[in-house]
């Protein structure tokens, strides 16, 4: 397994993607590997505000002459994400990772379909790149509120070796409607597993669809996290047996069949 470590990293680049989202590259001096669906905990190197690091899914990992580059896609929603958006390039941050259990790509059956909603894109994009590289064919559905909230459409397309379907709630780009509705409409019999990340209501709908089509879904969940390493029990989700497990360790990617209906 990838060894988790805690290291200072440098904010190497930032690119605005939409009114609320941006992409970052973090330069890690030490080694770092990650599989799609894994996440990192990122925070400032000093100071108590914010006090806790924040979880972000890895969108990709690349090499550079100066070290490993970790790509993140971030939505500005509060304190730390707005700090990330303003921080000068070259600033130091503190990165703990890789963490958690990602998508089960190696055990993925013949034809997965990938589903991303909004800022749920990063782990799905990473999974797409990885599947393409391994030559496993898949389709990808990606939905957002409107055209200018669709992140990196070119890259998503390039990373996809099958159909790449874009949807917007307002129809301003691609198919109109919720991504799960579009998926239901365009569902292929060959789809043997769903890999999904997005807002909780979307994931509930994905789980529902998976039940109906009798396929397994792998869902990347987003719970508030304090530690990211299984010791605070703040990030738990409910399994179908009613027990709570830390999503930072047992997840963030869960099989829908493991989870309680409303986790």
């Amino acid at each position: 397994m990838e060894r988790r470590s805690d290291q200072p990293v440098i904010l190497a680049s930032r690119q605005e993607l939409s009114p609320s989202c941006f992409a970052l590259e973090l330069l890690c001096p030490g080694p770092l590997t990650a599989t799609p669906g894994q996440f990192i905990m990122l925070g400032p190197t000093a100071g108590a505000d914010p006090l806790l690091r924040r979880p972000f899914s890895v969108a990709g990992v690349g090499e550079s002459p100066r070290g490993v580059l970790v790509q993140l896609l971030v939505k500005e929603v509060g304190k730390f994400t707005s700090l990330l958006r303003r921080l000068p390039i070259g600033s130091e941050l503190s990165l703990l990772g890789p963490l958690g259990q990602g998508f089960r790509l190696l055990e993925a059956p013949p034809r997965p379909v990938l589903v991303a909603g909004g800022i749920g894109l990063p782990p799905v994009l990473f999974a797409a790149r990885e599947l393409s590289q391994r030559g496993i064919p898949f389709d990808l559905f990606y939905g957002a509120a409107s055209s200018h909230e669709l992140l990196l459409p070119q890259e998503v397309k390039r990373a996809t070796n099958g159909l790449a379907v874009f949807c917007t709630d307002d129809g301003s780009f691609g198919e109109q409607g919720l991504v799960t509705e579009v998926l239901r409409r365009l569902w292929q019999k060959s789809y043997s597993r769903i890999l999904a990340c997005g807002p909780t209501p979307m994931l509930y709908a994905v789980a529902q669809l998976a039940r109906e089509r009798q396929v397994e879904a792998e869902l990347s969940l987003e719970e508030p996290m304090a530690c990211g390493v299984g010791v605070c029990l703040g990030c738990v989700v409910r399994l179908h047996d009613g027990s709570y497990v830390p999503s930072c360790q047992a997840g963030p990617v869960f099989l829908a069949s493991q989870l309680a209906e409303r986790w």
Partner: protein
Amino acid sequence: MVTVVQLATQVGSLTLRNPVLAASGTFGYGLELVDFCPPEALGGVVTKGLSPRPRAGNPTPRIVETPAGMINSIGLQNIGVEAFCTQVLPALRQRGATVVVNVFGETEEEYATVVERLEREDGVAAYELNVSCPNVGKGGMEFGHDPSSLDLLVRMLRRLTRRPLWVKLSPNAPHLLAVAEAALAAGADALTLVNTFRALAIDAKKRRPAVATGFGGLSGPAIKPLALRLVWEVHRAFPQAPLVGIGGVLTGEDAVEFLLAGACAVQVGTATFRNPAACLEVVQQLQAFCQREGVEDVRELIGGLRWR
């Protein structure tokens, strides 16, 4: 010339290799973070609170960050004392960690059940009683708010074990000194000060409490000045009582402050969430502080605050 710093300290009869323990509920059962912070390198580890049987804990959301702090409402989720004894304790013992087991219950009997089970095991250095639990027998008033309930509880457990009994007090008790006195009189070997502060965070948009249970417990640097005040007040009132200080320790200097206020050892809680090696770094920074300031034995610091 570099001073060689003696880091060992004493909490009552128990010797710790250094004064820094990992706090209950913030370090799992002791093994989860070995790659960042080997438990045997610390003064000790205090386990997540154990009950007679496993508990699922509270609904979610359970945590929220607040300015320089966090509120939690975990609801004492734990694997139960039996699983701890069979699945965790042997490995901790083998590593040579000093293990303090945090115990709680909703009745006196529940506390007793946990202690009795642990009495059958080697490798437990002390018990820490979390008394911030609603006492089902007393209409839900917390054990730690009521000197007479606490007196009964501690006396009962005192009869069950010769191991050190630490009582972890709640800062929400209206009369903390009375509670402290009751615990000491009933035979507690040390007092741990403090547990989290009852607090409320609100999600303004949703118009709901940020954690599912409404109130939760505030921890982290925000509470340090409050915890230090309480430690000093209890130390002044009971200068002979061994105290374990806790609340917002992030750095070695924070630890020094608790020692100066009268604690023989400190615990590091929330800091571990932002940095899994926090406890270890506090030990190192404490040592560095002593070296810089020419403190040869960390025990010199205990109670060393010059009041005015």
